[in-house]
């Protein structure tokens, strides 16, 4: 068993080994215990300052990172692009170097451009954690999804997972596929032909265009949101039609002769990709995912900080 991550930054699942992921999960087990105590805070990162830099909107991820940082006793500075000098024409490296000049040790960044986190990691000294770079990767989401599957099934290996929806624009989908495959799960993607990239099969992922068939195959269905904000052309006629073909509802769930686990990375568009009665059903582990998100992010921050030295 490894005791240290093989990376200095968390840019994507692509760079992690299976051992890295297992180390993160084991450390997250300890932190999950911590956040269920009467006092949910430990002093490990008390001499670390972390900047959360969000060039794109986020509620859940930002809150989750901030809670994780504060529960590790780190000092936290938040930065939202809309309220900053970025709107005055400053470049990414300039913005971040200015923040680093104020002695920041780690940077959590979300950015609309794929590769932004890698670019940053090459140019600055702080540890960089990718909190989503465009349509590329969202590693902590994939880690918490796989961790939630491990918690539910006791393992990830051999579990059949279908990812349904806007695969083309989803960084959650790509990170999930890479993470689940590294851990030995079987992965399928399902959605309209226009929203499934051609390279999917080269990743060793099964492709299915019929939702009912996909659900009959899987143990876990991860329902993704349609990312209208990233769609510059129309990929399907109407949201209503999408919902009829690829929306998950109670009737569809009851027609399967088995119980499947329902996941969703959020934010949910109720009535589009998933109906309320399914999202709130006993099969849904959506809120467990949110709880595990804090533990996973604490584990990632702790392990990366450990590699820093003093």
């Amino acid at each position, binding site marked *: 068993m490894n005791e240290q991550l093989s990376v200095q930054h968390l840019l994507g699942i692509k760079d992690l080994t299976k051992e890295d992921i297992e180390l993160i999960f084991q450390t997250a087990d*300890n932190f999950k*215990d911590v956040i269920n105590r*009467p*006092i949910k805070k430990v*002093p*490990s990162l008390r001499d670390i300052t972390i900047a959360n830099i969000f060039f794109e909107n986020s509620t859940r991820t930002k809150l989750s990172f901030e809670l994780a940082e504060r529960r590790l006793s780190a000092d936290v500075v938040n930065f939202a692009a809309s309220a900053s000098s970025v709107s005055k024409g400053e470049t990414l490296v300039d913005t971040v170097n200015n923040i680093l000049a104020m002695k920041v040790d780690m940077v959590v960044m979300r950015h609309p451009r794929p590769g932004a986190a890698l670019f940053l990691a090459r140019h600055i000294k702080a540890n960089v954690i990718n909190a989503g770079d465009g349509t590329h990767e969202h590693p902590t989401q994939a880690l918490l999804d796989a961790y939630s599957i491990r918690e539910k099934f006791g393992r990830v290996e051999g579990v059949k997972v279908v990812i349904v929806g806007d695969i083309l624009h989803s960084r959650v989908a790509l990170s999930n596929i890479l993470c689940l495959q590294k851990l030995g799960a079987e992965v399928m993607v399902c959605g309209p032909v226009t929203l499934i990239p051609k390279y999917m099969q080269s990743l060793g992922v099964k492709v299915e265009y019929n939702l009912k068939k996909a659900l009959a195959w899987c143990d876990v269905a991860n329902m993704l949101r349609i990312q209208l904000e990233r769609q510059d052309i129309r990929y399907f006629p109407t949201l209503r039609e999408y919902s009829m073909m690829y929306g998950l509802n109670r009737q569809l769930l009851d027609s399967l002769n088995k119980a499947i686990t329902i996941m969703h990375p959020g934010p949910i568009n109720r009535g589009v990709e998933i109906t309320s009665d399914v999202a709130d059903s006993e099969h849904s582990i959506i809120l467990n995912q949110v709880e595990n998100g804090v533990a996973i992010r604490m584990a990632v921050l702790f392990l990366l900080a450990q590699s820093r030295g003093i």
Partner: protein
Amino acid sequence: MPENSKLIFNKELLAITIDRLCYQLIENHDNFKDTVLVGLQPRGIYLSQIVIERLRQIQPDSQIRYGELDVSFFRDDFRRRDLIVPSSTRMDFIVEGKNVILVDDVLFTGRTIRAGMDALLAFGRPERVELLVLINRKFSRQLPIEPDYIGKSIDTISTEKVKVELKRPEGEIGVWLISDEKFYE
């Protein structure tokens, strides 16, 4: 054991000493109504498991509660020394208003115990905290911490190591003092 090691406790002497520590605990805590025993991970739990088992043998109606506490996240040498590998915490009670007996195998610099007292506070404010150790290494403290129950106090120099083997399916059980050969060269 290597040649440069000196036996401090053999199996028989260890059993006698643990018995004595148990009776000292009973003397001070009676039926343990408001007392909890907490072993410190990773190495202290072997001793605490033996102590709690023996206490329950001696006093079958004892109400003592038992937990195991990991102090990794409370250490003051994070990023400064070796890698910290967390172990699990098993505490299914809060310590508010209780007498807590912390248990560790070797007391050396006192830093683990300090972290342990910090970690303990996440489970409430104890009435009183005591410390039980099997080996007390004298003259090596870096913090003002002293044990209440001592298996044996020994004089050591900082380059020496104390090896404690309490639970082994195979191999000898006992405590050894291992000196660093380089020191004598």
